[in-house]
């Protein structure tokens, strides 16, 4: 399998009052297409920061990030946004659904950035919602759904554009045990049955069990 994500010599530091705070040091990482990778590590080790850089919502201080053939560390702000719309599906710890939009409308949101017609969008949204098992909740608003259901809507939103990568940052962090189990099973199905490349950040070993491969971050270094 070819590497779909290629990170070389990546460093990231934040600047606070002229003090440099190093967060990631000299990271090298390759993720194969079709992998389901769990990024683990204690809180504050830089997992979110690394994931954000793979997803193109943050930029490295040094080093390269290639996704496919695209050197995303070199893209402009606007070009990155366009790139994200095509290639990345995000799943967040707190779901981040739009509270004023229904499940259907939330999932449709990223499709508004494509050239798909209204009927094509409808088909894609219905398919995505049926994959996550929520076809009967199409017109529900987020507040009418349980946490686990909300997260499944968020997963449908992440997969509806058929992106190159699905990136999930602590997707089970806000869920009870059963819902967490459901969500991880769903992600693992997306990987095994639909061939999605998925990177999950988690510090929950039980959640990480579902992944194919595991990497550990500690104090900014990858083990």
């Amino acid at each position: 399998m070819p590497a779909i994500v290629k990170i070389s010599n990546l460093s990231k530091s934040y600047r606070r009052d002229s003090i440099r705070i190093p967060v990631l040091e000299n990271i090298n990482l390759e993720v194969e297409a079709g992998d389901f990778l769990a990024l683990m590590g204690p809180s504050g080790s830089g997992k979110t920061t690394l994931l954000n850089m793979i997803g193109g919502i943050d930029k490295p201080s040094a080093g390269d990030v290639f996704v496919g053939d695209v050197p995303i560390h070199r893209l402009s702000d606007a070009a990155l946004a366009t790139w994200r719309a095509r290639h990345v599906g995000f799943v967040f710890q707190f779901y981040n659904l739009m509270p004023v939009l229904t499940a259907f409308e939330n999932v449709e949101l990223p499709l508004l950035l494509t050239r798909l017609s209204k009927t094509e969008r409808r088909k894609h949204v219905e398919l995505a919602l049926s994959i996550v098992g929520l076809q009967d909740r199409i017109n529900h608003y987020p507040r009418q759904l349980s946490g686990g259901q909300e997260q499944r809507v968020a997963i449908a939103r992440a997969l509806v554009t058929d992106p190159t990568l699905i990136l999930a940052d602590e997707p089970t962090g806000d869920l009870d045990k059963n819902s967490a189990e459901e969500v991880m099973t769903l992600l693992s199905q997306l990987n095994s049955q639909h061939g999605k490349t998925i990177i999950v950040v988690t510090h929950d070993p039980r959640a990480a069990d579902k992944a194919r491969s595991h990497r550990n971050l500690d104090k900014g270094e990858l083990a």
Partner: protein
Amino acid sequence: MAIPLKYSIRSLLARRMTMILTVFGITLVVFVFTAVLMLATGLQKTLVGSGIDENAIVIRESSNTEIQSFITRYQAGVIQTLPDIALNADGQSMVTGEVVALISKNRRDNSRPGNIMVRGIQPMSLSVHKDINLTSGRIFEFGQTEIIVGKRIAERFQGCGLGETVTFGMTDWKVVGIFETGGSSFESEIWGDVEQFLPALGRPVFSSMTFRLKDPAQFSQVRDRVKSDPRMTVDLKREKQYYDDQSRQTATFIRVLGIVISVVFSLGAIIGAMITMYAAVANRTREIATMRALGFQRPSILLGFLTESIVISLVGGALGLLAASSLQLLRVSTINWDTFSDLTFDFALTPNIVVTVIIFSLIMGLLGGFLPAVRASRIKIIEALRAE
């Protein structure tokens, strides 16, 4: 690609109370603004409606109004024999000499005095002037001490109703008819026989002359020819222009005052909208960051929030417009500052005002929403996603 309109609208509706208060602020400002424009326009309409383009009015040079004007006998003679005057069906020249004066009478509602314009007319006046219709009674008889009263005066002044008697110039004048003129300022006048009025008012000569042009397009040639005689120290104006000039100053004054007040008030409404929108942005940084992560561009976010403030301002504007349009049912009386006579007119809502007010509302929305929208478009995605 823009963020969906339903997202913007529903987000507004989600904060109903804030939204209603903000809209209400804009409604108030727009109401005041619209009302003032309607007032100025109504005044202008009433006065301009008195004149027609086919008529020329002659007044003494450099007197702005008929009230300050007099026409010498020589001048009257020249005007009467102009070859450019249209003839009526009976072959008579459509020219008339009139006298105007102000009299003071008490109002019906509060018994306080107000000025009324009285106008002595010739039989030909009734065909030279526009749309004179009797609503009750009959036309006065020439040679008698009889008068007809404009309906606005009949309604508002003591002793001016049909069958009553008005006293001025040491004469009692019997009201034998009430007339209307389609809302023009003539409705705020009293008309009688010029031959009776001249001696009663102690005037030796006409105040003004009005004639119908044979060819309205020839107006400036006629004026220039008349003025080439050094003894013709008169001004000729198209009748419509004459009334337009009269109303312009007052209308402009009302407009300027109204606009200044509205602009000052609108600052409050704009700041209100701005606070509302800043709060909206602060409440929704996580939603904004999520949209950005999904791939929505900065300009789309900016536009989305601008849309919200514009919706607020347009709804407020529409409500203000609606409220102001009910003023059309109201009647206003004021002093015509050019003649010091009482003048009654309506608030007039025109398409022009509607467009102006919508643009005004739009500008308030844009000004109030711009900075918050810029802030929304500039939020840092990772920080906003991290914040809990």
